């Protein structure tokens, strides 16, 4: 099983130096993990490091493909509030 970085990653470099398995690498359009190297931090850290520092919701998926940091979990903005604000801005 391996963690995965998906679209939305802002290439902030925060995760890369923390990975105990050197599984994260810079790529375009965004950073990626090497599934063969990712250990899910087993044996090194209690919490998978990439998903623990990543500031962007939804861009890191765990071994079963679920977002480790779902919408609202990092910013504290309730998702429905975010959706309403975005709709309002678009309607301007």
């Amino acid at each position, binding site marked *: 099983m391996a963690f995965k970085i998906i679209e939305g990653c*802002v*290439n*902030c*470099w*925060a995760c890369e*130096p*923390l990975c105990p398995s050197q599984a994260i690498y810079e790529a375009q359009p965004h950073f990626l993990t090497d599934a063969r190297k990712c250990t899910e931090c087993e044996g090194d*850290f*209690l*919490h998978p*490091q990439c998903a*623990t*520092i990543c*500031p*962007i919701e939804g861009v890191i998926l765990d071994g079963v493909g679920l977002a480790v940091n779902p919408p609202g979990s*990092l*910013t*504290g*903005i309730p998702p429905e*509030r*975010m959706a309403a*604000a975005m709709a*309002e*801005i678009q309607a301007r």
Partner: protein
Amino acid sequence: MELKVLGQDTPAAPSPGGGCASSGCGGNSDHLAHLPEAIREKVHNHPCYSEEAHHHYARMHVAVAPACNIQCHYCNRKYDCANESRPGVVSELLTPDQAVTKVMAVAASIPQMTVLGIAGPGDPLANPERTLSTFRQLSEKAPDIKLCVSTNGLALPALVDELCQHNIDHVTITINCVDPEVGAQIYPWVFWNNRRIRGVEGAKILIEQQQKGLEMLVERGVLVKVNSVMIPGVNEEHLKEVSEVVKAKGAFLHNVMPLIAEAEHGTFYGIMGQRGPTHAELQALQDECAGDMNMMRHCRQCRADAVGLLGEDRGDEFTMDKIAEMEIDYGKAMETRKQVHEAIEADREAQRQRAGQCFVSLTELGGVARKETRPMLMAVATEGHGLINQHFGHAREFLIYEASATDVRFIGHRKVDLYCSGGDTCGDAETALQKTIRTLEGCEAVLCSKIGFEPWGMLEEAGIMPNGEHAMEPIEEAVAAVYREMAKDGRLDAQAPETLRMRA
């Protein structure tokens, strides 16, 4: 000597060396007077710290530090850091080597650039290798450039000793609170010891590290400035305590900045409808904090970039591919820089002398003006060098001065959306101009080098007197002159409304 007359009214009499009576005027100004000589010397030419020097010198930033170790409710990491520039203003991420090359290229072309800062786009100390490598190379290759760094403070204690090795004499810590309960409303989480720690617990760690870092820097003789973001209803009362605490620990300046929150920035505060402070609220808090600490009012939230110093956007001259083609002989550049700095110093000295004379003549108005004219606010459009030298329509910000019968005092900056950018963006001109005029609320005159017909009329209608008669004159001298004219015309006879300063 007539200067003595001034001294009776103002506790801070001009210094024996013929210095400037105005608090807005550089090395001799009130807000530096209490500092030890060594610190004053350091501050003297620093565009971030000396009110007067920032007319003449400039700083630049390089974006080498993308990662961050905390989340702030006023920041959206999908854009650049809110500390450094407004969201959406994307700066080019540089490697340390690229940054060093760019800094040296700019320093060689713009000798006024004397300070290099690293402030983001994330937290510089959450990227220790990139930040320290940039500093290490620059201390070696360009020793005439001062280095400074801004941080949220979380990683500061661990890195203080390494930072000190690189001759860093200025550090800015953003401290928004000293109470974890307040902190929990500003910082949803911090990354600490390989864990994401939320709420009060996380805020407590951040506050501890900030305070420890501040103490360690002061112990080592490093200048520390504290920035605070004023968030109405969250920390505006609390910031008075913050001001006391950081002063007691030895921070030499405390700069209170307004929260900027708009839904389109996508920040927590923006989306949740948290408002920023009004000019009046900001100024009231700055006044209150100034009572027990030196406030810095001219801070532009780090927008005084060297490439903008000359009033035109020179960023395009320094893209990485253009820099790669430049041949820089830094040894030679350093000599030129030295000459330019000497010329600037001579110029500043001359301005200081003139300003001294000007204040003498202010008192020549005699009793009438001194007793019965009220203070007023004036806005100034300037591209730097301490002169009134900018077209009204080109001003991205105005400097606000308070003039009274005895003094000209620098109050702060107000930013505007540029209305005269030409081309396609002109469709919106009227609204934008009205916006600009709203920014100038509370001012009774605006001084600029030139002004168009349309804004002239609208300003007059809004009760703000446009004035282009003092083009290319030193700011304080011109402000004093306009004040005198208005006093003579009897326009300042009325007692100052209580609210005048409040509207500033």
